[in-house]
């Protein structure tokens, strides 16, 4: 029975296919942060695979064909993603544009199977009925979106959002950056590739005109305009891609204005900088939902529920830094630094600007190429380990500038830091720092609370040593002193040692039992906190001497 005209069935199918394309941009550009100008090239590959396989095996089921197309584009996407993992930003956009023109040329010359003979590809029954095909396309779209939503909640999917915000911070959380980026790009390619498979089924004969670089750019613009990183945005993009040209046609206007309209819309969205239409709407709903929620970590001192004694800490897990030297080109940043961070206390690293404090943290956590000297965590030599391996081995850190991931909720962030393995620990951490509602999006947190959340994150997955770079930045004086006292309790509560870099000497006095002073890349003093701070050399390093 025919409910609507076959023309509208066709348009509704196209909406599903366009929504799939927008969704792939939403993942690759919105979630992963790669500007892709080649999503339709993946669709072309998917479409080609369907036409080619079915030309050789006419009896094969359409659903199987879609999966074959998806698998092939996943493979192509993964290879490209892996090969280009060190290329970023606009340079990667250049690569994708190059790929789009190359694929465009390939299919222009090669043609799609059946195009030369005019033999259309017809999906096997029952999918040769446009209504059933339409149903299939929507079922596929919704299933794929559901799977993608689930994927976004897995550690791999959450890791992708972390990578967009900062690759360094993601690696420090123990995420395999290269693999996750390639995988994310490949999943995007897969969604586009399946969209291409549906296009093959819908049109029968494919033409390279459908997959030009310009078409890819317009898909990008549409996705930016509607905010396709969420399903509603992708659906809106699909609707726009079909209904706008339809409206133009009825108004007697040229159809190619569609692209220009979307470009203008994307321009305006980027000018406002608030995200695409659906993303803005979602943000507004969230703002409303959490209007009255607590958006800050109100630190309270109160006695912790259950205090372990620091003596139980595994003392052998201490961090040993021996003769560490770091030089960038000819600049010697660190010279033969020796430092031991025990697991039973808080160790502060202080010193004037440019003394090399952050470089030391970078070197210990694996961000400095190959520093001279040795570093051990317990008996384990660190030098050969990657950032990720060190993190997973129990060496955690925070950064001077906040790297909390605005796209996630608190719950998701904690999951990423290893909550699943230590649900009990996560609960203690939450209470300890008085973290707000789990469902609160991180973007709604105030800046200081984001930093506290990052510290909380380092504690969840059995850390041995954590390194905190200026934990009190952005906190007012009162809160920073409470945080100092909190940090002082961490070794007992969580059984790990802490190294803090901090400028606020008051903070150091409250938090640390041991202080090392760096000046000009060298250790100039070390010892008990109060004694070291009274040391004449240290005062000199801070205040300088008079004119001689």
């Amino acid at each position: 029975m025919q409910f609507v005209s076959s023309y509208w069935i066709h348009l509704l199918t196209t909406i599903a296919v366009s929504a799939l394309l927008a969704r792939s941009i939403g993942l690759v550009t919105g979630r992963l942060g790669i500007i892709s100008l080649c999503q339709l090239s993946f669709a072309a590959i998917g479409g080609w695979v369907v036409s080619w396989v079915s030309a050789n095996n006419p009896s094969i089921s359409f659903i199987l064909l879609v999966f074959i197309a998806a698998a092939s584009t996943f493979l192509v996407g993964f290879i490209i993603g892996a090969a280009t993992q060190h290329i970023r930003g606009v340079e990667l956009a250049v690569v994708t544009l190059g790929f789009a023109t190359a694929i465009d040329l390939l299919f222009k010359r090669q043609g799609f199977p059946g195009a030369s003979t005019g033999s259309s590809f017809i999906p096997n029954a029952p999918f040769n009925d446009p209504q059933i095909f339409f149903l299939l396309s929507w079922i596929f779209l919704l299933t794929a979106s559901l799977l993608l939503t689930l994927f976004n909640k897995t550690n791999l999917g959450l890791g992708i959002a972390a990578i967009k915000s900062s690759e360094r911070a993601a690696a420090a959380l123990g995420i395999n950056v290269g693999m996750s980026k390639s995988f994310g790009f490949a999943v995007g390619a897969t969604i586009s590739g399946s969209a291409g498979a549906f296009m093959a089924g819908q049109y029968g004969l494919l033409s390279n005109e459908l997959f030009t670089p310009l078409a890819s750019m317009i898909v990008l613009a549409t996705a930016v305009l509607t905010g396709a990183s969420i399903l509603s945005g992708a659906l809106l993009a699909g609707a726009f891609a079909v209904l706008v040209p339809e409206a133009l046609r009825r108004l007697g206007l040229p159809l190619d204005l569609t692209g220009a309209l979307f470009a203008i819309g994307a321009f305006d969205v980027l000018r406002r900088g608030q995200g695409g239409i659906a993303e803005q709407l979602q943000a507004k709903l969230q703002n409303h939902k959490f209007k009255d929620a607590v958006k800050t970590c109100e630190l309270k001192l109160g006695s912790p529920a259950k205090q372990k004694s620091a003596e139980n800490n595994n003392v052998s897990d201490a961090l040993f830094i021996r003769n560490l030297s770091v030089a960038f080109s000819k600049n010697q940043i660190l010279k033969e630094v020796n430092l031991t961070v025990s697991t039973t206390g808080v160790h502060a690293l202080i010193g004037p600007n440019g003394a090399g404090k952050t470089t030391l943290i970078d070197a210990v956590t694996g961000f400095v190429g190959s520093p001279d000297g040795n570093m051990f965590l317990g008996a384990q030599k660190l030098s050969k380990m990657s950032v990720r391996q060190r993190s997973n081995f129990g060496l955690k850190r925070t950064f001077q500038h906040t790297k909390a991931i605005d796209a996630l909720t608190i719950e998701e962030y904690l999951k990423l830091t290893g909550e699943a393995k230590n649900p009990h620990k996560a609960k203690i951490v939450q209470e300890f720092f008085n973290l707000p509602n789990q469902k609160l999006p991180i973007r709604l947190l105030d800046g200081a609370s984001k930093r506290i959340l990052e510290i909380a994150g380092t504690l969840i997955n059995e850390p041995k040593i954590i390194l905190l770079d200026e934990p009190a930045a952005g906190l007012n004086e009162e809160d920073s002193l409470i945080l100092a006292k909190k940090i002082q309790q961490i070794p007992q509560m969580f059984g790990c040692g802490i190294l803090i870099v901090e400028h606020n000497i008051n903070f150091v006095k409250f938090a640390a039992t041991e202080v090392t002073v760096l000046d000009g890349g060298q250790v100039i003093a070390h010892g008990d906190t109060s004694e070291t701070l009274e040391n004449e050399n240290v005062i000199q390093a801070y205040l300088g001497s008079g004119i001689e």
Partner: protein
Amino acid sequence: MIESIIAGLIVGSGYAIIGVSLVLLNRFTGVLNFSQGAIGAMGAFTGYALIAMGAPIFIATLVGIVIAGLLGFFVGWVLTHFFADSTTTVRAVITITVLIALLTLGFRLFGDSPMLMPDVIPKTFFDVGSVRVSTTTVVAIGLTAVISVCISLFLKHSTLGSKYIAMSESHIAAQLLGINTLLLSLSAWLFLGMLSAIAGFLVAPTYNPSFASLSLLVVPALAAGVLGAFKNIWVVTTGGLLIGAVEGAGARINWLSEYRGMIPFIIILITLIWIRRKQVWDAVR
């Protein structure tokens, strides 16, 4: 073979000139302009439309060049006005929306079929040994070289050039020395837009482009830019000419001729993978 290489050099001079304007714009203003080819194409196609309507070649060419310059100026104004604080990626996406708009406009104005374009420079042939060379080739390569030399001299030996180099290192630091970075940026947009139109005029008679295909010259131009690591305009110039020559040679190799347009992509891919091989981490923030 040699003749196809020489024909390739004409197109290569277009790649080189657009490549140089892309690289300079990127250095001076921090914008990677994907629409630079389309800006040049708009100028060149306007010029050819005027010629078709009977305007004198010289006037038509001049008008075309000026139009591209003004178009570049306008795009530059939009970017500096609305997107001064945006990231480089957002600015690049903006130039993509500009490219979409220009391609739509170009299609409306000039259609999408390849066109035969008359030579702007009178075409005569002469023989060098056994090879037949046209004046067009000589002018194209000569002009490319002259443009690169002039720009290099300007940057190296004039105070204004020093200001541009200063600006390419830091807009803020330049402003703090009283340099009007806004004015300098817009002038660069204007001038480099005009250069891209010149590239369009040089290439069109050999290339018989549609508006879209002339606009997408930006891809091989980007390949040339990548070869020069988006910095060294000599490498960009040579790279552009070489890509043209290789494509020209490829036209005579059976298995390659149809697919020689993929060469720029392969160059982009391999060069960037090589340049960035040690860049394990994203930038520190």
